[in-house]
């Protein structure tokens, strides 16, 4: 198997971000929250990417901020993924009223853009990590639900699934041995997409001031803190913005490659 260069780059960068997040306290040159320099210093050997709106080291805050962004996005995408896949498979294999109920519920949730729903909900709930993760996870599970239901429905009508039913296999065998192995590749690619979406979602919320609250910070929040500097030509806000972009594109490259492998499994023209 040959992995294309783009996917390799994507994997390497994603891994680098994750490792930097995990080992943040050992890697970051300065603490998260202390003003170690002057306001909006340029790049120097002391502060590689300069300092921020109150003189904190941007590299250190990027590392710590990435930790929060990746953590929140990962947990919420894991939540959305497991919820969506569970209910999607349930709906596809059980059918009947369970399917109808779940599908209509998801239709209702998806009738309004997630960001608008999140804003409405966050106007009532307290802004903390758990609430954010739950809100993002539940809202986004609708997309995973639709995909995994569709994939499972496609597979459930295959003759080999019918053959297993005729053999007398239990529901658990049919789901875990017949359907899941064949649904795995599109779902793995989808996990990448959900993770990106969660990164964008939490960054947007933080940017709007409705996400991660100080003293914690994440990349979206860092853009918000430093955005006024742009008017004076200070590029501090662009660093976290670039970090978001690079992470999202890296994961996208990997997911794209996995997806292209899935579609090619079906490929080939007869005759």
């Amino acid at each position, binding site marked *: 198997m040959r992995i294309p260069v783009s996917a390799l780059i994507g994997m390497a960068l994603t891994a680098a971000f994750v490792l930097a997040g995990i080992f943040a306290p050992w890697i970051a040159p300065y603490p998260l929250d202390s003003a170690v320099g002057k306001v909006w210093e340029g790049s120097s050997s002391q502060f590689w990417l300069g300092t921020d709106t109150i003189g904190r080291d941007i590299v250190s805050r990027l590392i710590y901020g990435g930790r929060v962004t990746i953590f929140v996005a990962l947990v919420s995408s894991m939540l959305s993924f497991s919820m969506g896949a569970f209910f999607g498979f349930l709906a596809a294999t059980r059918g009947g009223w369970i399917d109808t109920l779940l599908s209509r519920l998801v*239709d*209702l949730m998806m*009738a309004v*853009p997630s960001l608008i729903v999140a*804003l409405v909900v966050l106007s*009532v709930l307290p802004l903390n990590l758990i609430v954010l993760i739950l809100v993002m996870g539940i809202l986004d599970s609708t997309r995973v639900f639709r995909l995994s239901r569709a994939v499972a429905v496609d597979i459930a009508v295959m003759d080999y699934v019918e053959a297993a039913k005729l053999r007398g296999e239990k529901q658990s065998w049919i789901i875990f041995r017949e359907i899941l192995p064949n649904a795995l590749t599109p779902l793995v690619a989808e996990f990448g997409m959900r993770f990106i979406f969660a990164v964008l979602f939490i960054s947007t919320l933080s940017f709007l*001031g*409705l996400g991660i609250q100080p003293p914690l910070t994440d990349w979206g929040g860092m853009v918000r803190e430093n955005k006024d500097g742009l008017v004076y030509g200070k590029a501090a806000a662009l660093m976290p*913005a670039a970090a978001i*972009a690079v992470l999202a594109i890296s994961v996208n490259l990997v997911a794209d490659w996995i997806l292209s492998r899935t579609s090619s499994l079906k490929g080939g023209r007869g005759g």
Partner: protein
Amino acid sequence: MVIHPILKLVVQRIVLGLILLLAVSFVIFLGVQILPGDAAQAILGQSATPEALANLRSQLGLNEPALVRYFTWLGHALHGDLGKALTNGQDISHDIGQRLGNTLFLAVCAGVIAVPLAITLGLIAARYNGRWPDKLISGVTLATISLPEFVAAYFVIFLLTQVVHLFQPVSMVFPGMSFFAKLHAVALPVIVLVMVVLAHMMRMTRAAILNVMQSAYIETAELKGLSPMQVIWRPALPNAIAPIISVVVINMAYLVVGVVVVEVVFSYNALGQYLVDHVAKRDLPVVQAVGIIFAAVYIGLNILADLIGIISNPRLRHPK
């Protein structure tokens, strides 16, 4: 009288859409009620005394059953009365009326540029499927899709205000401004919105065209001796037009989200900014009202896309 089946479908779809909108308004209204904490708590904060809370609750009508409050609110809303803001007591309908025009101006400007551009690029990418123009366009759009709206916005701002001094980084639009002054003022936010919508729209247009180009009837046309342009005009376009229009309409929905963020970025005084401000202030009546307006636009666009799909299907237009 025989009712044309397509008319039946169209009416069905519109009624379904209205029911959906009603359901959404109900969920937004009630969802906000059943979540822990209520408007009184939100206004007075966690440290409020129980007496103060109780007073405010009865003042706000929070002691009535939720269903009663919903229908009271719905009745008023249908007459154009969305209530008063908690924070400053301003009439919400009036505030929305002032800002709606600005939001629409922004969205329409973005749409007018993005739609033809997206379709043209989509056509080019599909025409050169797999060759370098396709790869270039697809690569660039993949990158834009990977960016949140505000990230794209700040790169554009930095580029066009700092590197090249073309625009002001803040977009102020106020009554009495000339049309061209307004256009100049919204140029930056429009560029950002176009970037965001364009990428999605172009990718879906490309997919829709490729899907049609792979049909057997395209091969039939080639084997009839039609030139590439004739193939596009005769069998391809009539069949691709419906999916393309549907793609365009669906992507207008991205504008709904895009507008909210972009307005905040550019401190553009319109609905999105208004919504975000009042979420932070926990002003529930405002959030509900604006949320439902955004939802209505979004649902309306989706119904429109479905209707176009129904009307353009020859199987439905000419039943057996």
